[in-house]
């Protein structure tokens, strides 16, 4: 399949001239890459996707698919595959007709069309369902038909708009694996819109985090998780402790929990900064570390494989995740000493 790159340059979109649905969005997606647009609802991720597909027009900016600017192309000439949130299967057509539809639009000969439709259905594991009507299929099956339909005409790029939102948890995880496999097998460029951070984390090569029409950060799941650039990204992805502090230089910060050492060392003196400390990076310590007070435990929630401890370190609220193996050590305990490594403390500029 012919994968292509996608370039968004300074895309803005406004309906009323004041409120920005998309605000200066720029992004380079490499050919064959799997990129997720992650953000809360109303953050502009779907609007951006709709502009790529051609259902909405940027107020300004440029979209290029490969070498070609596509801003002036109507949706049906963009050759972009799309999987819709509710699948958008044609209720009055059979599965075969649904999958064959894009080929029909491209004037593919009947036999060729049928063969390719069959192959596409085989790729998603739906051999033998050709004669069915969408209403006779389960949600997961409809999802696969939608996927086969988006794949069958070998589009330059595939857009997926929260495609797994309507599925139950087990099926969703199964489909995540499926999608990843198909992406790997075909090597096609995929843009995946979701508001589920774990889905974005597990599937993406890179994640673009959207907030209020802007891209807050683009990066690999690891980068996004470990080194968020803004408070928003830090809070939206994963569980987090944000500790305010002022820089003392040399990577040291004065915070409500005492002097904290962090990974970064470039910070100027006295500048205020937010320190991110992921709950699972905090460990139980035998003794007081760095002159810190013990953590006062307010409550615990047992997740089985881990224990979430909610408490206070001085005046700072702290969440800590304790692996199952260590959880027993906290039974009947109202406070404990905690520790973490300096390289696990990330400074948000």
């Amino acid at each position: 399949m012919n994968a292509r790159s996608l370039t968004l340059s300074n895309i803005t979109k406004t309906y009323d001239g004041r409120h920005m649905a998309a605000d200066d969005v720029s992004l380079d997606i490499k050919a064959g890459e799997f990129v997720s647009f992650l953000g809360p609802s109303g953050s502009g991720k779907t609007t951006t996707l709709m502009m790529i597909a051609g259902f909405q027009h940027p107020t300004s900016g440029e979209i290029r698919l490969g070498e070609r600017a596509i801003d002036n192309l109507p949706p049906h000439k963009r050759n972009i595959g799309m999987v819709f949130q509710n699948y958008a299967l044609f209720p009055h057509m059979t599965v075969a007709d649904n999958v064959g539809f894009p080929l029909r639009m491209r004037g593919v000969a009947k036999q060729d069309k049928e063969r390719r439709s069959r192959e596409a259905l085989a790729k998603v594991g739906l051999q033998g369902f050709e004669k069915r009507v969408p209403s006779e299929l389960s949600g997961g099956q409809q999802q696969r038909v939608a996927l086969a339909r988006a794949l069958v005409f070998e589009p330059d790029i595939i857009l997926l708009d929260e495609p797994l939102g309507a599925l139950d948890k087990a099926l969703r995880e199964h489909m995540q694996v499926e999608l990843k496999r198909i992406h790997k097998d075909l090597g096609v460029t995929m843009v995946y819109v979701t508001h589920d951070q774990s889905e974005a984390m597990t599937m993406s090569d890179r994640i673009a985090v959207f907030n209020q029409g802007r891209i807050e950060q683009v990066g690999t799941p690891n980068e996004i998780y470990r080194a968020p650039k803004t408070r928003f990204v830090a809070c939206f992805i994963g569980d987090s402790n944000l500790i305010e502090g002022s820089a003392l230089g040399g990577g040291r910060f004065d915070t409500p929990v005492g002097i904290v050492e962090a990974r970064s060392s470039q910070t100027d003196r006295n500048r205020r900064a937010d320190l991110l400390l992921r709950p699972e990076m905090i460990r139980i310590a035998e003794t007081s570390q760095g002159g810190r007070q013990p953590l006062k435990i307010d409550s615990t929630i047992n997740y089985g494989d881990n224990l979430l401890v909610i408490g206070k370190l001085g005046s700072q609220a702290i969440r800590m995740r304790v692996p199952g193996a260590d959880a027993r050590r906290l039974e009947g305990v109202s406070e404990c000493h905690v520790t973490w490594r300096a390289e696990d403390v990330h400074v948000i500029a």
Partner: protein
Amino acid sequence: MNVWIRSLAILIAAFVAAPMFIVIPMSFSSAASLAFPPPGYTLQNYVNFFSDPNWTQPLTNSLLIGLGTVCMTMLVAVPASFALVRHVFIGRTVFNLLIMLPMIVPTIVMAIGYYIYFGQLRLVQSYLGVILAHSCIALPMSTLILTAALKGFDRSVERAAMNLGASPFTTFRLITFPILRPAFTVAGLFAFIASFDEAVIGLFISGRDKATLPRQMFNAVRQEADPTISAASSFLFLLVLAGVCIWLAPQLVRRRTRLLGQTDGNGAAQPAAATS
């Protein structure tokens, strides 16, 4: 439910339905008068209804005018309902009111307006004149039906079609129209019946050669005492009776199958879902 309410409802239903059945025996009456029960029986009224040009011509006219009204109404109502449901624009409320207005203005008022206006346009006694007037009358209801259906229409299906390479026109032809066809059909049927049943405007502007069936029936009742009206009435009534029965039959069949399905076990109905 309370047996009294049940009986009362049956009684009222009888009052609603029974009077119309009297036209059937009357249609076989050999007498020209309104005597009931008829003094004798004959098929003459039906022979007249299907052979006398004074009746066949209005029947044909009404069918043609009805079909013309369907076309004209849909040409206007379909775009209008898409605009109402899918667009936000200045004056939308006024536009909506304008479309509903023909339902508000009494028909007799419109009849006098058309009589004068179409007289000047030389559209009195023409198919076009009656079709235009009937389309105005039919427009509000047809638009209401279409907008209701459009509101429930999932637009992502259209987007999917365009995304898959269908031009806007092809999308309408292959996707939007087929999915909305039931609503289009019902809206068209309402337009047809609105025209086919309309008496007042037809009375004033349809005229000699383009007389509608309701006009002929009106005149038969008022002026000519033509017993053929009994056959015309029976014909129209039986048409409705058949229509209502055809509409009812699938419901009965469906209920029957549902009962059978329950005895067979629940799984049998949806084999597809089980394999996922």
